[in-house]
């Protein structure tokens, strides 16, 4: 296991270097003079020159890249052109908001998806199975930005049950400590605000959860169906163990590997989907941060935002890979 972990970590190095190179090349790939394009048509010569210097564009490209890499290793993500603030100082509140949203979405997706998959497999060919699988098929085909809009229209505008957008009640703002509001409100014992934050979370989290939920349900179902046909399950049932335990303990344990793979993959897609969901629900997360940066042509922010999300994605996949080895002793990684 240790050897495998070390090997996986070493294999990560070229991927991370590649990530940084692609993100580095972004500004350089802008057709024309990047500084001119970032500053717009009306920019003065001096301003363009200053920005060229600030971005290091006057140096040969390999020196630029090594400087960039060196900065990254010391945690320097560059400076926002719009706010003139170091990105590593202003990025955390956005990142925290996205992590909170993605985490809740993933919890919803796993809880509903896995259970729907299990029940569908348990009662194969029942009406529950058919309805769940039709919903799962629709779920993977639905554009989440449209689903988000529909949710807003139905639950906020028509029924007036939940807030349309934002992360907190503007008149009752959360005092941030960790910037993860569910935790912050609990630490401060502000349960009124906790409920409020939760109410703001429900719609975007469900919109974001839809696709992973559908995919997890489908994979869990097929994985469970395969496992439930095996001999040891028949033995367990013959021994008179209650069906609930056969399904949730004996079968699930062995059906979980493909489900984990999908969860790992979906977490990455979730981070991408967060951009769309955050735009619709005015959720002040990374998606919103990058989206606003694109409108303002704030390339250092676009670069760093994309790099941070890709880095998290790579780390999640590494974690899932290592988790397999821990969960399934049949997997031999030497």
């Amino acid at each position, binding site marked *: 296991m240790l050897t495998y972990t070390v090997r996986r970590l070493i294999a990560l190095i*070229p*991927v991370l270097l*590649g*990530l940084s190179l*692609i*993100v580095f090349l*972004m500004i350089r*790939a*802008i*057709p024309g003079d990047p500084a001119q394009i970032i500053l717009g048509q009306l920019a003065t010569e001096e301003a363009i020159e200053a920005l060229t210097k600030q971005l290091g564009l006057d140096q040969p490209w390999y020196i630029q890249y090594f400087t960039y890499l060196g900065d990254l290793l010391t945690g320097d993500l560059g400076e926002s052109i719009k706010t003139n603030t170091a990105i590593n100082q202003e990025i955390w509140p956005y990142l925290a908001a996205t992590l909170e949203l993605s985490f809740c979405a993933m919890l919803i997706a796993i809880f509903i998806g896995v259970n729907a998959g299990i029940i569908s497999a348990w009662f194969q060919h029942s009406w529950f199975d058919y309805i769940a699988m039709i919903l799962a*098929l*629709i779920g*993977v*085909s*639905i*554009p989440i*930005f*449209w689903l988000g*809009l*529909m949710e*807003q*229209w139905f639950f906020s*505008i028509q029924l007036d049950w939940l807030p349309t957008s934002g992360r907190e009640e503007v008149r009752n703002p959360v005092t941030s400590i960790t910037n993860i509001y569910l935790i912050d409100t609990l630490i401060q014992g502000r349960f009124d605000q906790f409920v409020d934050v939760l109410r703001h979370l429900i719609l975007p989290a469900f919109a974001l959860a839809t696709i992973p939920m559908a995919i997890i349900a489908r*994979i869990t179902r*097929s*994985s469970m169906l*395969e496992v439930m046909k095996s001999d040891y399950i028949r033995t367990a049932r013959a021994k008179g163990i209650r069906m609930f335990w056969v399904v949730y303990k004996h079968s699930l344990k062995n059906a979980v590997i*493909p489900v984990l793979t999908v969860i790992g993959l979906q977490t*990455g*897609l979730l*981070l*991408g*989907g967060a*951009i*769309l969901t955050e*735009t*619709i629900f005015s959720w002040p997360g990374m998606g919103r941060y*990058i*989206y606003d940066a*694109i*409108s303002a042509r704030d*390339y250092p922010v*676009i670069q760093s935002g*994309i790099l941070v*999300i*890709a880095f998290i*994605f*790579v780390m999640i996949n590494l974690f899932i890979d290592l988790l397999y080895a821990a969960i399934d002793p049949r997997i031999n990684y030497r």
Partner: protein
Amino acid sequence: MEVSVNNKPPIQPKNNEDKVQSPWVEALQSFMKNKIALVGTGIVVFFILLAIFAPFIAPQGINEQNMANRLQAPSAEHWFGTDDFGRDIFSRVIFGARISLWVGFLAVMGSAVVGSLLGIIAGYYGRWIDTIISRIFDIMLAFPSILLAIAIVAVLGPSLQNALIAIAVINIPNFGRLIRSKVLSVKQEEYIVAAKAVGMKNNRILFRHVLPNSMAPIIVQGTLAIGTAIIEAAALGFLGLGAEAPNPEWGKMLSDARVLLIQAPWTMIFPGIAIMLTVLGFNLMGDGLRDALDPRMKN
């Protein structure tokens, strides 16, 4: 005894089932038995016909404004209602099928051609070429795909054409990896070894033997990828990074409809349903093709 046996005519196959069929015919028969896949194909064909005959079906042009008629709810005259410029949404949704299908097909064709080529080269030649190409795929797959698409459009500038390029690029590694693994297994087959032994050139082996035998997964992946590409194009359009006004691209229509959510929800409902149905069609068809062409790919 022997004479009588020899005098018997050779046994003729009595019906089609006794004949040895090509795997493609077998796949087609199995596909035709799959009702859900046929429903999917029906939806896809419906939208393709809609796109082709849009000028004959749509009651109005895409950009016929009539301010006196703005924000009309769905009615017998305007089936899907009108938008804030008084344009007929039904007509715009029909013309939108042209853009979405076009972008979906073209982007997936692009990524399938480039991805397959890279995958074949990596799988067939192996060694350092394989290492380099596979690492590039790894790096590209390390980005959440829509994020990579956004990055590409942010660099190239927002337009439908650049959105198409971005979607094609982000899908390359999916095809590349799939074909690479297929080529690795086909490469070991006896007929390839035989082709090599008779001195056939690499190019000929690749394009006459390896590629045709790797087609099934490309077709399956391609069909499923069109659905994803349509959603991705709509997402870019929605974020203002794809089609520009007055193009009736479905994602762009949704983006314009956002501000009308309270007063005119129909401006948002119908383009969304169109996207969902088209993507559903391609997904059902792709699932059916997968079951028919390559049952091992299931799950």
